[in-house]
């Protein structure tokens, strides 16, 4: 189910709500996604996208496997996006996108791409959009206890109940390198509860919260980048 809500002040905004209670032995995850469009997008043949994680903060950082997941999923959609890996991109324009040097605002991007060598290299590798991702997944609560006893005959038997909640919160800012403007942003929030009930045998029912956030964000990003608005 997806519901779109339009926000008056912004040119376009969409809010989707997706409840995923997937296959057996998967916990329930609720994910919402929001889109704010500030400029037209669209991709032509040869245009590439780079998904980058913000690494300048000293206390929190987006997980590298989340960046890899979004990059990977963008290439697997029905209308796949041509993605260049984060590592390949930062190496090819070294040192301009190193953690402590990379442009934090789109105005700073203009300064970087005004350097002829950088502009030439970006043109050469065909990068049209930079997608900056900030956020992370964290465990917000946990409870319960599980004990396993080795009974006669060395057979283990467990009893108890463990539960924990995970929350994901990610925002992607999309910069158009060709025009040097911020095209918009897509954000997602996902939460889910995992359980491990055990009566003799523990049965883990894991909520794949980060994976759901990745899928939701990638779908919305793909639509944002490819569709011409």
């Amino acid at each position, binding site marked *: 189910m997806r519901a779109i809500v339009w926000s008056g002040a912004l040119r376009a905004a969409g809010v989707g709500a997706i409840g995923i209670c997937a296959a057996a032995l998967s916990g329930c995850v609720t994910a919402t996604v929001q889109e704010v469009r500030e400029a037209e997008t669209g991709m032509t043949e040869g245009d590439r996208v780079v998904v980058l994680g913000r690494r300048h903060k000293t206390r929190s950082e987006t997980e*590298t496997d989340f960046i890899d997941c979004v990059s990977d999923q963008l290439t697997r959609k029905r209308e796949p996006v041509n993605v260049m890996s984060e590592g390949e991109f930062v190496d090819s324009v*070294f040192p301009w996108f190193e953690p402590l040097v990379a442009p934090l605002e789109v105005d700073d991007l203009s300064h970087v791409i005004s350097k002829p060598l950088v502009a030439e290299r970006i043109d050469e590798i065909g990068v049209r959009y930079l997608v900056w991702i900030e956020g992370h997944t964290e465990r917000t609560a946990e409870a319960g206890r599980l004990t396993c006893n080795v009974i006669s005959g060395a057979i283990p038997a467990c009893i108890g109940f463990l539960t924990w909640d995970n929350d994901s919160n990610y925002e992607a800012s999309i910069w158009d390198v060709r025009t040097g403007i911020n095209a918009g942003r897509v954000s997602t929030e996902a939460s889910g509860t995992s359980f491990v009930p055990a009566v003799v045998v523990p049965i883990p029912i894991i909520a794949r919260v980060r994976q759901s956030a990745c899928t939701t964000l990638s779908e919305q990003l793909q639509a944002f980048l490819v569709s011409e608005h």
Partner: protein
Amino acid sequence: MTVVRLGLLPVAVAFAVFGCTGANVVVNTVVPSPLVEPLPLRVGVFFDESLRGYVHEETVEDHGDFRIELGSVQVPVFERAFDALFEETVALSSMEATDGVAAVIVPVFEELQFSIPAQTRGQFFEVWIKYRIDVFGSDGELLTSWALPAYGKSNERNFGFMEDSKGSGLTEASVWALRDAAAHLSLYFPRVPEIAELVQGGQG
């Protein structure tokens, strides 16, 4: 009867395997050539012994012995950075063999510090390296000593719980620190007044 708290079992296993073992890290990486306009100067570069064989050894209480070997990787990092920064660089075998260059540049290793998540109650392995770049004129006079700090970090969440996160985390943080050194050097060294003066003198 044995009672096991399963919730803690993975942590216990990981702790037993990696908990008190410290880490032995040999840093090996290729930092890309910086994408910068070269300065119109012919300079000599002399690599001090401090740069070639540096090994950091430290014991962290309750966490074991740590050894970070940076020696073999620093020279290529600086060579690439200087090759990009200047129109021509000459590798000097000694400070005396200046070979008619406009200046002699000597990168000097000063200090390395690191921290692991258990020390900071955070989630990052962090490495700080302090270099000094000495610049000598063609007459051998010291023109300037420029401080070059470098920082790298690595998120422990990027490693699996059965992985040697201390070794991998410190290696990755060291690599980011070396990249930061090369980035800082290539972007900010041309702004050092003495270097700007040499460029102006060379053009004049």
